[in-house]
């Protein structure tokens, strides 16, 4: 990995995206003190990770890519053991654990062995740990990989809630651009050990162009359109393509403008750039193959726990 530099602001959800082998997991390992940086320095809330690893770990929560709950313990016991290893106050422990189980919809299954849980429940149990330990910064490495769409939605919602209701700063890596768009306040795209670009989802999407309106019409098209509506990309056989800042607002205005000039608008479609487009632009080293491999290994790890 090359020298990379980025800041995560307190209280935000920060996403690190990138194809496999880009260095996302290595980045997390360095920040969580699981691997030593060969050069440079990393600070977590002002504490140097190489000099005070235990103090840094005290402030962090980490949900690794592979499901890592202990299948041979109950949900309650999993939370209890890790609360003790994080030195959560004895008086607080019990209360926080039952709150966390309740909050993540696991209260009824708290005394069941975790190996009988579904993959989604195991993930939620891992995230619930954050509610017991109350880390200042929570790392989630590919939190929704290998989950069905419903469990995925629940996990995303709960990550958001954790951030909003408890002020936990969250650092998440993912391949899923929809998820990144939905979840992150700011994100950075990594490619081949470097940060290719960073910013808010809206800012990033702007870098690959604005919204494009495709208008089908009958009648003679005007020679030009006013600047504030956008700029014409192409005008061909009654089909007009317009590049604009905010597509949704432009639709009625473009329609009015054309109808006033005797052009009948038959249909308007809007296409907006997605984070997928951003990703394709900035990270080119083979996303597809990698993401399949990773999804497979996550599924394997879930089935291993459900022996």
């Amino acid at each position, binding site marked *: 990995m090359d020298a990379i530099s980025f800041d995560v602001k307190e209280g935000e959800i920060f996403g690190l995206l990138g194809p496999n082998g880009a260095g996302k997991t290595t980045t997390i390992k360095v920040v*969580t003190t*699981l691997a030593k940086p060969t050069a440079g320095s990393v600070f977590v809330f002002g504490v140097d990770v190489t000099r005070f690893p235990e103090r840094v770990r005290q402030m962090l929560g980490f949900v690794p890519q592979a499901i890592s709950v202990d299948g*041979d*313990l109950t949900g309650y016991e999993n939370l209890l053991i890790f609360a*003790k*290893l994080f030195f959560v106050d004895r008086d607080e422990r019990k209360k926080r654990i039952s709150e966390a189980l309740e909050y993540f919809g696991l209260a009824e299954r708290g005394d069941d062995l975790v190996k009988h849980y579904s993959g989604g429940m195991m993930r939620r149990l891992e995230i619930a740990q954050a509610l017991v330990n109350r880390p200042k910064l929570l790392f989630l490495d590919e939190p929704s990989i290998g989950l069905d769409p419903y469990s995925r939605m629940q996990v995303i919602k709960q990550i958001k809630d954790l951030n909003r209701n408890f002020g936990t700063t969250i650092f998440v890596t993912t391949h899923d651009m929809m998820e990144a768009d939905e979840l992150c306040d700011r994100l950075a795209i990594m490619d081949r050990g470097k940060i290719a670009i960073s910013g808010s989802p809206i800012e990033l999407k702007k870098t690959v162009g604005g919204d494009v309106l495709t208008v089908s019409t009958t009648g003679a098209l005007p020679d030009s359109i006013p600047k504030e509506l956008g700029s014409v990309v192409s005008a061909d056989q009654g089909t007009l393509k317009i590049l604009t800042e905010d597509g949704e607002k432009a639709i009625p205005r473009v329609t009015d403008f054309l109808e006033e000039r005797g052009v009948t608008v038959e249909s308007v479609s809007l296409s907006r750039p997605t984070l997928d487009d951003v990703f394709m632009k900035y990270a080119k080293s083979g996303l597809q193959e990698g993401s399949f491999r990773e999804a497979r290994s996550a599924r394997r790890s879930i089935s291993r*726990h459900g022996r």
Partner: protein
Amino acid sequence: MSYPRRLVGSALTIAEMEARKIRHDSTELWMRTVQPALWLLIFGEVFNNIRNLPIPGGFSYVQYIAPGVLAQSVLFVAIFYGITIVWERDVGLLTKLLSTPSPRLSLVVGKALAAGVRGIFQGVMIFALALIIGVNLRFDPLDVGGVFLVVVLFAMCFASLSMTLASFLKTRDRMMGIGQAITIPLFFGSNAIYPISLMPSWLQTVSAFNPLTYVVDAMRSMLLTGDYSGLPLDIAALLLSTAFFIASASVVLRRLIE
């Protein structure tokens, strides 16, 4: 919280984790008493009929091997910990344990303590069996306590050795192989089931460097002879190697997740 308090607290938590797992499913623990039981009931009983074995002190053969069988079963339990830790690495649990603020040392000490607890269970079962089949041992409370102390130290020593090896070998298959390759020679190259005087001279030399010989010797002095003269050396050697392997395991353990 001070470092020693965090160290002890976390080590006890890791041991508690193991104890809770055993409470949910103790099948493995009971299965592990089958082998020593067979050694005592079958091997011991059959060889008991060989009258001219040169056993020092005039003890019966079953009496003679009881401490040896105990030591062997503890060795088998302890050497298994390297495989456990590789398995925990494979399911991601080790990464999670290492990402807690608990000192690395406490993880190793906790696992080693858990091995000690399993060892004590083996001891209780073997003592119970000895009582049932009428093997005469010195069941003096102090001696039994001393034996348990040796059992715990011995289990901690080999569990940490096993975790150290696991940090270099890194896969379960290799650990299974090395487990066999360590335990069987240690067992047959010790005084566990026959006196050293019966061995060819090269093997006698080897057994003098075999830690199992000292463990069995310590147990035998407490359970059979009551002659404690060799005990200080036995326990000192055991303490030293336990400390060494715990330290080495906690230094190299991170290799497993790199």
